[in-house]
Each structure stands twice: as structure tokens, then as C-alpha cells.
């Protein structure tokens, strides 16, 4: 981190102004050497200056310079931000000049990496900033902001504090065995306390699954036999003609994706090739793909044509979809039908059509209901939302479950403390309180350029 780094930190191609951020020991002197205006090495910290970026006396761009001296900056290093006004090609030119003067182009996530390594932010905040940059909906943005504010860290610190107290009461018993005036730790007083921790962890994990949905959206896969109207449903949901619709069975051969915003939650809707035995080579691959994507889906919408004569094949396919969240959508409810759907009573069944967008209202309402989307809307967001965090939380939960089971099986307390300690340390890993060798590089490789 001897080097001074720079990068365009606004999204490329959008907006009238682009900002180039420069951070490092020589940030001020390098920018000063290409700036015509006041002498930047002599101004106060946290001030803004008007002038031009120049190259060999040629004015390249009219800029505003924001100058911030160490340590009160994002990276804690000297930082200069150049507001460029001349459009993207001029901004690129300014960047090039800085690189020629000895700046290094920032690697993805390098500003945040420096902020983390300089002790400015904790690991969880660093992850949250990456999330914030990539967030596609307002809710995801709020979730990321709450993490930056450290709500999640506080929640985990609270659980860790309780664990430490439990551990301390056990240790006193072990290290001072002869004193009968210390409360003796028994399963009767230990297990309820551990159950409380388990409850807190379960709650955290449960909420975190919601956090994941807020962040990543819900993956919805539309399945069904050929020509039941799957692509029409996708098009109606997206309100655009994304999939080619014909009355020829097998028209959709690949998977087609679209995104819709449902009450602030992103639905990643995937239309698939109809499920049937086929000799067409391309369609065969499509059918296999349909099966593959449905395995990873958060929700499957299984479409049945109201006018179909035979439900036997559908019943069989639906039975195979166990363990998945499922809505059976009976399409074409505007057409008459002799079918009875009481066989599907144990499933979520919704009727509708794709004649107008209103024909899918019931379907949308069902999704909102199934994923508590209204509830997510009002809930205080402080969830674990990266896969790394959730898997660590689950590991911590397993450790506590082991502790409880082992106590019930009569395993001695000196062993069980190992489980309790594991839980404590695993939670520490989530918030970066424990040093993890390989984690940092992996984490920062995910960051986008600029931040």
C-alpha cells in the first residue's frame, strides 16, 4: 500500500459528471502536478477547489477538486476526488494523465480493501459496501446501509456476549472446583441458556434467508407441458415481448430470463422449454436445462392449461417437485373446462389468464403472500446476507446444537466447552473479530472497481 491508486468511481457512461478518486501518500502531489489553480499542497483538508487539469499547458478538463487529508477519509489515506465535466472520453484522458504521473489503477475493491486494512471499517461493513454498490432495488440498498451502520455487528456481538457469560460461569466451576459457594453449573441451568442462544441464532438465520431474498431477489422458474402458455406468462409479467409466442408446441427451446420488481423485491423469472419427450436434439437440451434451473429455483410456477383433457402427466411431474415452493397456475381460466382441481388441494393453486396484466394479479398476490414480501417491507433490516455469512451462522448454530445434544448424552463439561467456544469463534469470523488467513483476498476480489 505504498502506491497511490486511482480509478473512475462513478458508473461508466451515465451521468453528466464523472468522479476520479485518487488515494495514497502522493495523491495530493500528483494531482497538484497536473492541476492549474491553487497550490493543492498548501490548502486545508476537506476543501473544494476550482481549476483545470492540464497536460503540457493544454487544458484537458474543467474540474472541481475535493481534497481530503489523512486520516479522516474513506481509505484513511490522503484522498483527492476530481469531478470531471467533459464526458467519458475526457474523463478517461484525465485518468490516463494520472497513470502517467505514477498513480496505479485501483484493483477491484481496492479502496475499500485499504479502508478495511487501515482499520477504518470492519469486515462486515466492507462486505456491505460491496452489496450496496451492486444493489438493484431500494430494499437491498437499505439492507446494505444497515450493515454499514453496524446493526448486524451489534446483533452478533450481543449473542457473543451471552456466550462469553455462559463460558465464564463454566470456567469458574472448572478452575475453582473446591469452592461450594460458587453456583454449580449443571445441565439444568446450562441447557436453557444454550437454548436461548440457539433461538437467537435460528432467528438470525431465518431473517437472513429473507435478507438474501432482498439482496438477490427470488428466482422463479416457470414449468409445464409444452404450449400451456408459459412464455405468455413471462411476457405479461414483464409487460414486453421477450419470449417468442406461437401456438406451436416446443417453440421455447432455451431458457429465457426477465426481471420484474414486485413490491420492491426483484423476481428473476425464467421461462423454460416445455417438459415433454422429444426427438428434436435442440429441444432435448432445452428440456434438460429446464430441469436443471428448477433445481436451483426459490419458487416454481407450474402451469396447467385449463382446457387440457388429461391431467395425469401433470400430476406426475408435480409430485416429483417435492421440497420446492410451488404455485400451480391454471392458465386460460377464461375458457370453459370440465377439469376438477381438487387433487391439488394440498398445493397453492391460482387461476388466471394472460389476456391482460390483471389476469395475473392473483398470481402476484400469491407470491407476495408466500415470501412475506409485505412483511419484509416493514421489517427492520439487519440480516446476514452473503453466502459466507449465512454458512458461518449455520456452522455456529450446529456447534450449539452439538453442545446441547452432548450435554444431554452425558458428555462431560470440559468437552462441551469446545462446542461453545467454536460457536463463539465462528460468530467472530462473521464480523472479522478473528483473523482469517485466506478470507481477505477472496472477499475483496468481489468488489467492483472504484469503491
Amino acid at each position, binding site marked *: 500500500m505504498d502506491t497511490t491508486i486511482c480509478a473512475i468511481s462513478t458508473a461508466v457512461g451515465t451521468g453528466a459528471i464523472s468522479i476520479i478518486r485518487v488515494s495514497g501518500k502522493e495523491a495530493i502531489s500528483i494531482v497538484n502536478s497536473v492541476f492549474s489553480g491553487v497550490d493543492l499542497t498548501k490548502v486545508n483538508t476537506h476543501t473544494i477547489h476550482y481549476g483545470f487539469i492540464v497536460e503540457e499547458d493544454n487544458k484537458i478538463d474543467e474540474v472541481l477538486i475535493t481534497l481530503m487529508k489523512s486520516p479522516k477519509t474513506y481509505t484513511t489515506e490522503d484522498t483527492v476526488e476530481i469531478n470531471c465535466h467533459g464526458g467519458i472520453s475526457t474523463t478517461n484522458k484525465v485518468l490516463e494523465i494520472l497513470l502517467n504521473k505514477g498513480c496505479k489503477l485501483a484493483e477491484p475493491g481496492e479502496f475499500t480493501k*485499504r479502508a478495511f*486494512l487501515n482499520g477504518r471499517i470492519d469486515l462486515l461493513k466492507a462486505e456491505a459496501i460491496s452489496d450496496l454498490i451492486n444493489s438493484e432495488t431500494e430494499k437491498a440498498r437499505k439492507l446494505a446501509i444497515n450493515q454499514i451502520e453496524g446493526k448486524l455487528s451489534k446483533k452478533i456481538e450481543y449473542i457473543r456476549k451471552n456466550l462469553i457469560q455462559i463460558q465464564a460461569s463454566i470456567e469458574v466451576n472448572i478452575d475453582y472446583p473446591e469452592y461450594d*459457594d460458587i453456583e454449580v453449573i449443571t445441565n439444568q441451568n446450562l441447557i436453557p441458556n444454550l437454548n436461548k442462544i440457539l433461538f437467537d441464532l435460528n432467528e438470525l438465520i431465518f431473517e437472513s434467508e429473507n435478507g438474501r431474498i432482498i439482496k438477490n431477489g427470488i428466482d422463479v422458474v416457470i414449468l409445464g407441458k409444452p404450449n400451456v402458455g408459459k412464455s405468455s406468462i413471462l411476457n405479461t409479467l414483464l409487460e414486453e415481448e421477450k419470449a417468442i409466442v406461437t401456438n406451436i408446441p416446443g417453440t421455447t427451446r432455451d431458457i429465457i430470463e426477465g426481471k420484474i420488481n414486485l413490491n420492491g423485491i426483484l423476481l428473476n423469472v425464467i421461462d423454460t422449454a416445455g417438459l415433454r419427450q422429444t426427438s428434436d436434439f435442440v429441444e432435448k437440451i432445452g428440456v434438460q436445462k429446464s430441469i436443471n434451473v428448477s433445481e436451483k429455483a426459490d419458487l416454481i410456477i407450474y402451469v396447467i392449461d385449463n382446457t387440457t383433457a388429461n391431467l395425469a402427466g401433470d400430476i406426475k411431474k408435480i409430485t416429483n417437485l417435492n421440497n420446492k415452493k410451488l404455485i400451480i397456475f391454471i392458465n386460460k381460466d377464461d375458457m370453459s373446462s370440465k377439469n376438477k382441481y381438487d387433487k391439488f388441494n394440498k398445493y397453492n393453486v391460482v387461476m388466471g389468464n394472460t389476456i391482460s396484466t390483471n389476469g395475473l394479479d392473483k398470481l402476484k398476490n400469491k407470491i407476495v403472500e408466500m415470501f412475506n414480501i409485505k412483511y419484509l417491507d416493514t421489517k427492520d433490516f439487519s440480516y446476514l446476507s452473503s453466502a459466507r455469512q449465512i454458512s458461518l451462522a449455520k456452522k455456529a448454530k450446529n456447534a450449539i446444537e452439538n453442545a446441547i445434544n452432548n450435554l444431554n448424552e452425558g458428555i462431560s*463439561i470440559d468437552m462441551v466447552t469446545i462446542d461453545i467456544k467454536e460457536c463463539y469463534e465462528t460468530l467472530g469470523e462473521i464480523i*472479522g473479530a478473528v483473523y482469517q488467513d485466506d478470507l481477505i483476498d477472496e472477499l475483496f476480489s468481489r468488489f467492483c472497481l472504484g469503491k
Partner: protein
Amino acid sequence: MKNKYDIIVVGGGHAGCEASYVASKLNFNVALITSNINNIADMPCNPSIGGTAKGIVVREIDALGGLMGKIADRSHFQIKMLNNSKGPAVRSLRAQADKKIYPQEMLKELKKLKNLTIIEAMVEDIIVNDNTITGIILENNKVINCKSLILTTGTYLKSHVLVGSEIKKEGPHGERRSLNLSDNLKKRGFEILRLKTGTPQRIEKNSIDYSNLKPEYGDLTPLTFSFDNPPLYDINNQELCYVTYTSPETHKIINDNLEKSAMYSGNVKGVGARYCPSIEDKIVRFADKERHQLFLEPESKFTNEIYIQGFSTSMPYDVQEKLVHSLPGLEKAKILKYAYAIEYDAINPLHLKPSLETKIINNLYTAGQINGTSGYEEAAGQGLIAGINASLKLQNKEPLILKRNESYIGVLIDDLVTKGTIEPYRLLTSRAEYRLILRHDNADLRLRKYGYEIGLINKIQYNKLIKKENSINDLINELKIKRLSKKNIPLNVLDKIKEKQLTSGYSLYELIKRPEFKIIDFINNKLINSKYSNDIIETTEFLIKYEGYINKTYKDIKRLLKLEEKQIPKDIDYDKVKNIATEGRQKLKQIKPLTIAQATRISGVNPADISMLIIYLKKEYSNNE
């Protein structure tokens, strides 16, 4: 007395005895300097050796070839295993050691050493040339030269004995204190700490009414600290200790006289240990507690003194009289010695390398209370390591640095030299993150090989260790090979399995993993050989039953060792490592950790600092690799 020795040890307490012993055993000419030869291996406080964690330290000392375990085995009159109910990883021995016999036996052992000279004298100053120790100056200005010096001065540096408002400038038992040595160390750059400890009253045995007091017995199974000797005591003829409690009257006396206590009147400058508070401390800090437990422990079979464990105080004499008489059973007790607090100088242990050599002066070692610890066992463990490392250095060999996953002694020293201490440091099992591995039963398996390599463990002892290792492996194999099926399962085993039909067979190894089975069951059923001794069975059963936890611990240890392998070059300039927090940088400069693992344990050095350090090392040093 000659005017030149290889190694000089200053102080004849538990650290000094072990240090002199091992250095002499390794064929160096050693002088042990003490102010009073009758105080060699003195036990100025509690009459016991061992206790949680400490008992395991004594086993470790024995495994490495030190003396404490053997002397304790010869001199105690009661012994028991603590924490039997809390599990095998935290069991520890504690013995009531006879205060008369223990020092006698120790002196006898030291006198057997031909190249050890015991000198009665006071040391005024050390002689340093070119940052290396070359000798000492005695009170009478006489100079004795040496190649290495080990300071084990206990509580004698500038000590004050405090009772009420009285301050006596003396060491324990009215002994002479050392006035100038700590000042002279300070002049040479050592930061001096002021610490405090205390000891309770001694009561005349026959003046106590035992009729309503609960007795405490020794265990009825034979126990020894040492791996080499059979039990030497009569199991059925152990002395008793008794339990009593503070009364409401005791609490009232304390509260009424609090300002008279040396601790509360402002006379005490030293920092006492939180885990070993005086009785006034306990009553003030835990005001809601109705009573505090006290133990009445005989000091010796040959004196009539009883020690009141848990009742140390610095109240004036008249208040002490009232306090003692407020205790049930001690209404008419006669006080033979009053309780007192003692303040003394110690050096900041952050000045030490993990070898216990000081960073400031080459070939100068310190061990025991001078390093800020408390306890006979902690002192002995350090004395042993200082003695070994002073010797190894003179032999041009690498020092013995025990890791945290190898021994409690390693945990103790690493804590001291990495974290430092502001109060007298006591070992606790909770300080050891791998205590599952640091057990009472396997101290020899962990450490004897080091003792053998160094030359403190002889061939016979070493062969015994190898035999033990082989026996454990034999037993494990036997349990794995022997399978029980429908045909050969004994009924009493089948009953326990609780399966109507044995669908598949089980190896005995698999059955031992179940809580309801013990190896002894299979020996009784004649399913396996009966040749194995109890200690073999105990360790083997542990290894099988807790295999899952053991493996988990080894996984953690592997992670630690990976960081231990990342050495930090001695010439590192922390000012060149960018972006370390100021506090972290100061601590790293002061402590100079040898490895990344040690750096992670320094309080004030955060994970981000470690990342920076690793990045710096990769950048600066990887080209040379």
C-alpha cells in the same frame, strides 16, 4: 566459593531450585545464591502443591526432568484428584505438602549435585559488558563472574510487609529484603512493576474446635505427581483438612474497620491479583454474598500450625484477632502468625523472549515472581525452562520453546512474554485453548522426549515412555480387531447395547465410543488382554471416547501451527510496515513477536494489523526465500 561459575542462580525458591538443578545436571558449574540456606524451597504461603492447571504443570516439570513432582510425592500428607466430575481434560492433582519436609527433601536433592555450590549472600548489582551479562556484585562488593545469570528473586525485591498501618521493610518471615537490585535493573532499562500478594493467619492446631466443621479427605486411590515413582504414602493415613465459613459477625468487623486495612488506607501501591483477593476485598466486592468459604489446612505433621486458606488480610493485629474469633470453630483460636500483605518489585515480562532470556541483556534470564507470576508451580515451571535455556545457549543450541498446544508451561510463558501482566499471573485451565490435549495423564507423552533430547531424562525413563506409547497402540489395535457378533457377544454386553438383534457386528473400539461402555468392562469379560495398566487404559479410553473432539482440536492446532511457521524476521522495522494502527505498531515494537501466531495474540494488535504485516512480509521477504 570460587570467583567464576558458568551459571549463577540468584534466589533459592521454587524457580531457583529447578533452574540450579537442571543446569547442574547438564554439567555446568552452578552457584545458587540465597540470603538464607534454611529458606531453600520455602513455602511462605499455602501448604499445598498442585491444584487446577498447576497440578498439570507439576506433571510437566516431572516429564521434562525437573524436581517438583518427585519432592512433592515424598513430602505430602494428603493428595486428591480435582475435577473428576468435570471431565478428563481438566483433571488435576493437588497435594497438601508438608512445609517442613518439602524444603528438607529439596535441599537434600540439591546437595547431591557435585557441581552446584550454594552460597549465602545478597546480590547488589549485575555486571554487563557489551549488552551481555558477565557477573554479579555482592553486598560486600565481591565480584563473581559468570557466563549466564538467572534471577529468581521472588518477593524479595524492595519488599514491604504491610499489616494495618504498619509498614515493615523486609521480606517474608522477617527475612532481609534486596534493596538495590531492582533499582539497578531499572537503570539498565527494565520497566519495574509493583505487585502485591498476601497470606493469611496461622492458627494453633489444638485451639480449633473441629466438632462442627466438615472434614476434607484425600482420595482413596493411589496418586503420584511423578511418572517415575510408585506412591510413597499411606493412603489410609492421610491428614484431614476442614471447611469453615465467614459469619455475619466477620462481615460486620470488616466493614467497621475497612479504613484500617493497609489495602484500603492507601498504603499499598502494588497491584494484587483478582483471583486471590484478601478477605476485605471479597467482602467489599461481593457485598451481596452472605458467606465465604474457608479451608483449614495443616502446614506440617511436625508443627502445630493451621493455615486458613481464603482469609488473607492486611488488617491490624487487634482486628485480626476479632476476625479469626468470628469464624465458626475458631471462637477460641490462638493466632500463631498474623496475616500480612507483601509488596514487591517485578520486571515487566514483555522484556523477555519466549526462552525467558531478557531482550535487553544477553544471557540474563528471569523466572518466577520477578516475572509477575504467582504460585510455586508457575515459578518452578519457569525456573526449569530458564535453567534449560541458559544451559542450551552455553551449548550453542536452540532454546526450548514449548508451544501453547504442547504444555501449560508453554501457555504460561507465551502469555507472559506476549500479553504481559499487570497483576500477579496465575495459570488457569481456561487460559489454555487446547486443554483437551494438555491433560494430566499425557504430560509424559507430550514432553518427555524433549527432556530426553536435552539430557535430563535418562535411557530407562525414556524406554518406559516408549513402552507406554506402544501399549496404548496395542490396546487400540486390540479393540479395533476384536469384533462382537451374534455368536460371541456376552449377555451382559448385549444387555447394554439395547438392540434385540445384533444385525451387524461391532468392534470393541466402536462400542467404547458409547457412553455406557468402558474398557474395563471388556477386560472383565476377558474379551481383551488384562496386561494393561490403569494409566494405559485411562489414556486409551479418553482417546477413543473423545476422538471427535480431539480431531476438532487438532484441526485448530493445525491452523495455529501454520501461523507459528510464519516467522517474523528479527530485523523487521515496524515503522516501514504501512497502515498499522498506532497502538498495534507500539505493541509490535515492544514485544517483537517471533511468529505471526504470536503477533495475533498481542492485545491491541487487531486482525487488520496482522493482514498488513503479512502483506509487508510477503512483499519484502518473499524474494529472498
